[in-house]
């Protein structure tokens, strides 16, 4: 740690030197060109004007960006996600929040096996066994809240594609993608150790994609990768 401490100072010392030179330079140039006080005042006024203008313009154009939620809202997001997760694990479909529902299918299958194929997709799956004698399988896809760094990822993260074919359910992850976001904050990451700062951890809600299947008892579900929940 102490070695690291010394090393971390070197760039600061370098910076100190650069700014010191800079101050000396501005002083000597201002001496040489007989910089009048009036031009100084003008520069200051223009600069402050530009800054204030920037604030106003930002207020005007920021409608393009995403909404940033408050800490309270994040807390409720996390709560709702947890409620859903618990209900999902306990197969309590009645408690599922319908707003998380994205898609649903019904599929008549032939034979008594249902094969689930996951192609690189990371989903959580649960099966409710029904007493029905029919060959009808119901599938529902849910997605809980996902926010990261203030972005609503529900829109941004592409869903895996779900294909129901004969007696196969194929979940295919979409090809790898990269997204870059710029995020501005009034706060200094400098002091992020202080707990009410906008730290990364506190503004992250990670949701999941859930597949809920309703399968008649007489049908075997085959999953090569092993299913998360039964």
């Amino acid at each position, binding site marked *: 740690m102490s070695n690291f401490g010394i090393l971390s100072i070197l760039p600061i010392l370098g910076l100190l030197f650069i700014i010191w030179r800079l101050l000396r330079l501005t*002083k000597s140039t*201002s*001496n040489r060109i*007989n*910089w*009048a*006080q009036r031009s*100084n005042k003008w520069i200051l006024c223009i600069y402050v004007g530009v800054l204030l203008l920037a604030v106003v313009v930002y207020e005007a154009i920021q409608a393009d960006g995403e909404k940033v939620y408050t800490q309270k809202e994040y807390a409720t997001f996390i709560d709702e996600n947890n409620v859903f997760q618990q209900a999902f694990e306990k197969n309590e479909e009645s408690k599922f929040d319908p707003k998380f529902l994205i898609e649903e299918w019904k599929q008549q299958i032939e034979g008594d096996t249902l094969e689930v194929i996951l192609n690189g997709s990371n989903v959580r799956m649960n099966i409710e066994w029904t007493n029905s004698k029919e060959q009808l399988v119901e599938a529902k896809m849910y997605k809980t809240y996902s926010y990261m760094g203030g972005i609503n990822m529900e829109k941004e993260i592409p869903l895996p594609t779900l294909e129901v074919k004969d007696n196969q359910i194929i979940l295919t992850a979409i090809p790898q993608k990269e997204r870059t976001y710029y995020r501005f904050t009034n706060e200094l990451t400098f002091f992020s150790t202080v707990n009410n700062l906008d730290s990364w951890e506190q503004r992250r809600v990670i949701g999941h994609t859930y597949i809920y299947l309703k399968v008649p008892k007489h049908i075997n579900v085959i999953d090569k990768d092993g299913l998360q929940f039964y």
Partner: protein
Amino acid sequence: MTVIDCQNLKKRYKRLNALEDITFQLEEKKITGLIGRNGAGKTTLLKILAGFIRKSAGDVQVFSNNPFNNLRVSANSILVDDQMSFPDSLTLADILEVAPEFYKRWDTELANNLFKYFRLNPKQLHSRLSKGNRATFNMIFGLATRCELTMFDEPTNGMDEAVRTDFYRALLKDYIAHPRSILISSHHLAEMEHLLEDILLIHKGKVVLHQSLEEVKEYAVKLQGTTDLVEKLTDGKEILHAKQLDSQRKYVVIRKEDVPALEGVTIHPVAASEVCMYVTSDRKGGIDDVFM
């Protein structure tokens, strides 16, 4: 009323005693010449009086206050010297503009008129003035403050002949219009002695003379005649200065009260500046003795 009262004032720097023992009182509204050789302690004394530096021992009172770090003294006195400096961000015109805020009796008209008379450039920066122009500007600044105690330390350094004459004239006229205590230090006594009322002569950190100019002028006389006669006359008397003119003639400077009434020698007056020079001389001879 007494403006300055120094009692056994001493100032020590690390190695040298700048002021050994200064005792004098300055009455108000007089122009006093602070005379002394190089290194006599004139500048040190003025800086103490202006409150810039601290005394080491003794007592110093300006307007009945210890001047060091004293706001009242600072507001009513000014020291004009060649190290006077102003921010580089302010032009001369800017300086003259802010000055009245500090000096309540600032004479804007005088400052502007003198400024125009000496043809200074209002857009110039103080640090980039030539030595003479800087001295002129400092002088204008010092006069225009009209401080009750105005001190000049070698004000004419760098000024040319014409400006010096103008400076002394301006000082006198402004003094007549607004009498105040003025202390001018210089080693050119001759060129300003007509202005002075009193002379404060210091040497090696001590006050040697503090008299009116007329008294100083009558302080000594020069006896000139044949060597034998002059030596006989001045035997046992305090000889301020002696010089062998040629193989037979010699002159000797002695105190006026010592003058014997005798013929055979001519008596000449001694100018005030010469008196000061002789009184502060450590060497009995002169520079000529070096080349014997």
